[in-house]
């Protein structure tokens, strides 16, 4: 298995994995800044405006046509939180030229395209093109308003918002609704320049290429100001224990959504991280886990009942969809599972099943270019260079005592319930 080749050019780190296993080149550019009340909304808006056009191709139709002409190159972006950072990830995937009769290098065309998007945007006067800024403000507003449409996601995000009410992590990565209106094209352009000048920048390419080729193409395509790469700041993982906070929201829904937020205080580079993965796996990561068995299979209370670990923020969350009347019963059953974890009620079968599942997942990463580069990006975020093979070994070595140690750190912080408007 070959590994990532690393380079550095001005403010950006380059990571290239040469492989001919895929029919495509997978490209990702990560730009991260600390989550911050003041900047979160303009930073979220920037990629929306950048994807409307570039100085060379200002019209959106021509801009999209360029992508179609590269055999329908995939182009998109996400804005999300990792730890206490707000990260914009641009993604491109384009097919390897050997499968089509193309007269251009599709990798060169893609990096040229991405370079223009990030460093040569469509401007007018002292700012971005006003028409695009207005349209994308409307798009961003709609995206934020639409969170409520997916009740499962809405409940999960409300739970985190309540749980982290006094930390930057409460902020939504897409920013704040009431700050969108006030953003002007010239001020947004200044935010963009600051962002590009300060963000931690990482470019990943996975495919049939080399660091040398990517370095050359990058030099031709990106116009970054001189400087040295920025690094990510450590997130706040520890939090004072407090009485569990109970929150209820009411809405016209058919099914109640029960969410719980747990503090683990265990981050990605903590030596207990492999044990935290096991804790989450046994509690609610899989169909053989305690939550699925006890909430769904034994009591028929729910269709889904699961837990998820956020290792970058040291949080574990639980989610389930239940009938309104079953709230007390479901909370009681879930709390009993947390207690049984603490009491070390971990069978050999639960240990071996969960180890097998996590190991399978870690091995599968190798089959997807995006999974590989996302995993590798964890090392940029945390400074911990543990490979997936090393993590796999550490997971295999986890003992029940390690999991009980994790359970001792776990605090039930918040219980959130989304229910109907009728009185209980």
């Amino acid at each position, binding site marked *: 298995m070959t590994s990532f080749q690393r380079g550095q050019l001005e403010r950006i780190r380059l990571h290239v994995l040469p492989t001919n*296993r*895929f*029919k*495509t080149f997978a490209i990702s550019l990560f730009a991260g800044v600390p989550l911050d009340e003041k900047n979160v909304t303009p930073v979220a808006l920037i990629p929306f405006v950048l994807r409307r056009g570039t100085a060379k191709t200002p019209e*959106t*139709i021509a801009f*999209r*046509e360029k992508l*179609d*002409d*590269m*055999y*329908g*190159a*995939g182009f998109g972006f996400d804005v999300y939180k990792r730890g206490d950072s707000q990260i914009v990830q641009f993604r491109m*995937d*384009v*097919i390897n030229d050997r*499968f*089509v009769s193309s007269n251009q290098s599709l990798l060169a065309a893609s990096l040229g395209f991405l370079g223009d998007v990030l460093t040569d945007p469509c401007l007018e006067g002292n700012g971005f093109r006003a028409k695009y800024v207005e*349209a994308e403000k*409307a*798009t961003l507003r*709609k*995206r934020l*308003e*639409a969170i*409520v*449409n*997916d*009740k499962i996601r809405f409940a999960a995000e409300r739970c985190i918002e309540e749980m982290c009410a006094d930390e930057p992590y409460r902020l939504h990565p897409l920013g704040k609704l009431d700050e969108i209106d006030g953003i002007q094209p010239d001020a947004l352009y200044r935010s963009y320049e600051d962002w590009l000048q300060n963000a931690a920048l990482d470019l990943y390419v996975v495919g049939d290429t080399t660091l040398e080729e990517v370095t050359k193409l990058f030099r031709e395509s990106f116009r970054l100001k001189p400087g040295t790469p920025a690094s990510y700041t450590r997130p706040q993982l520890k939090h004072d224990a407090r009485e569990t906070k109970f929150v209820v929201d009411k*809405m*016209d829904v*058919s*099914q109640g959504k029960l969410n719980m937020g747990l503090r683990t205080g265990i981050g990605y580079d903590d030596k207990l991280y492999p044990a935290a993965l096991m804790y989450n796996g046994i509690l609610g990561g*899989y*169909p*053989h886990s305690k939550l699925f*068995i006890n909430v*769904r*299979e034994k009591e*028929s209370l729910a*269709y*889904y009942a699961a837990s998820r670990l956020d290792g970058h923020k040291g949080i574990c969350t639980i989610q389930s*969809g*239940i009938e309104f009347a079953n709230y007390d019963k479901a909370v009681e059953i879930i709390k009993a599972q947390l207690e049984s974890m603490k009491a070390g009620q971990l069978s050999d*079968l639960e240990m*071996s*099943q*969960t180890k*097998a*599942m996590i*190991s*399978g*997942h870690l*091995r*599968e990463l*190798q*089959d997807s*270019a995006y999974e590989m580069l996302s995993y590798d990006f964890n090392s940029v975020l945390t400074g911990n260079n543990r490979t997936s093979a090393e993590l796999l070994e550490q997971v295999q070595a986890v003992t029940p005592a390690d999991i009980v140690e994790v359970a001792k750190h776990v605090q039930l912080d918040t219980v959130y319930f989304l229910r109907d408007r009728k009185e209980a």
Partner: protein
Amino acid sequence: METLQYPNVQETLYREVLDNGLEVIVLPKEGFQKTYATFSTKYGSVDNVFAVGVEEPKRVPDGIAHFLEHKMFEEPEGDIFAVFASQGASANAYTTFDRTVYLFSATEQIHANLETLINFVQNPYFTDANVNKEKGIIEQEINMYRDNADWRVYFGLIDALYHTHPVHIDIAGTVESIYQIDKETLYRCYETFYHPSNMLLFVVGGVDAEEVFRLVRSNQAAKSFKPQGEIKRYFDSEPVNVKIPRKVVELPVSLPKCMLGFKEKRVGLEGEALLRHEVTSKLMLDALIGPSSKLYQSLYEQNLISDSFGSEYNSSRDYAFSVLGGDTPDPDALIQGLRDGIAEAIRNGIDSESFERSKRKKIGGYLRMLNSPESIAGEFTRYRFRDSDMFDVLKCYEACTLDEVNNRLREHFDFEQLAVSIVEKSKPGE
């Protein structure tokens, strides 16, 4: 064992139909850690009236194919998820209109996992108690979808398009219909549709084809299946016109959702003809209303659509329709904008540049799909159950002409065949 070479995509497929009728396909992927296997029956939510051989046709409760899928995971010795977990495999299943698919993905103990997959699907275990227990779980699944606005607008549209064809019935059925399901009916459906001759096993990933065939052959040789007559599926005759031109529901959403569907007047295509029809229709929709089309950009600039807007084309032998739509602040203005754009395209036709661009884009998308074992297995099975070959899709895109696309456009878009489904914002306190 038959070897099928597809040099234009650098893939090789191995195929064999066993004595009991089971079709097995293996696609080795060199360098892949993971193996992904699907075991599928050509049995979905639309198969609600059927008979085998000389039997009398019988109607079964809505949602039973999906109910059966849930129940297959239970064996006398317990839940089969636990067995897969002990062997390091993630298992799952899903039910669509026309098939039920059981699957696992794993990086080790591939042979043990394959045996488990085949054996649990070929070993039904239904009791009154375990059937009743499942009703509460599926009721919560149905309620979860009731709160899902995207699901409601989409299935609302299909319900508006079709009078009698069971494609308009929710795949999971209704809370009322699932409470009518009992173990006897489950066994009857099982025995009809889970005969090996109605099933396909697809294995893709880091495997040796010959080893997989040896394992499956010996597994099947140790079991006996009665020969089965032809399965006959019955559908009430479907009127040509749409059932409800405009269907509206209210839910707590931030923006209304609006979908337009055009129902085909003529159906009945099969095999390669159906594949060509689908490819031409998809190309046509992309050139007309894909993200780089003039129509898309104009609607986006008028703030009538957002990134949520999309289009798709669904077809089978008995039903076929397009779907266009997404979130919009003003459903009526979006409907009008789409009607005007479509009418203009019918008058002027799609130009050759847009056509060539969409074609390249579709070819690129198809090749990208081949990176994903999950997509390959899912798509291959979908096409195979309609007697066509997924690996012919590339050829079809390459052969498709501008004239065909313009003919398809003019044939497909008939405003008499339009139905609209809308999810309006509910007002708080009502």
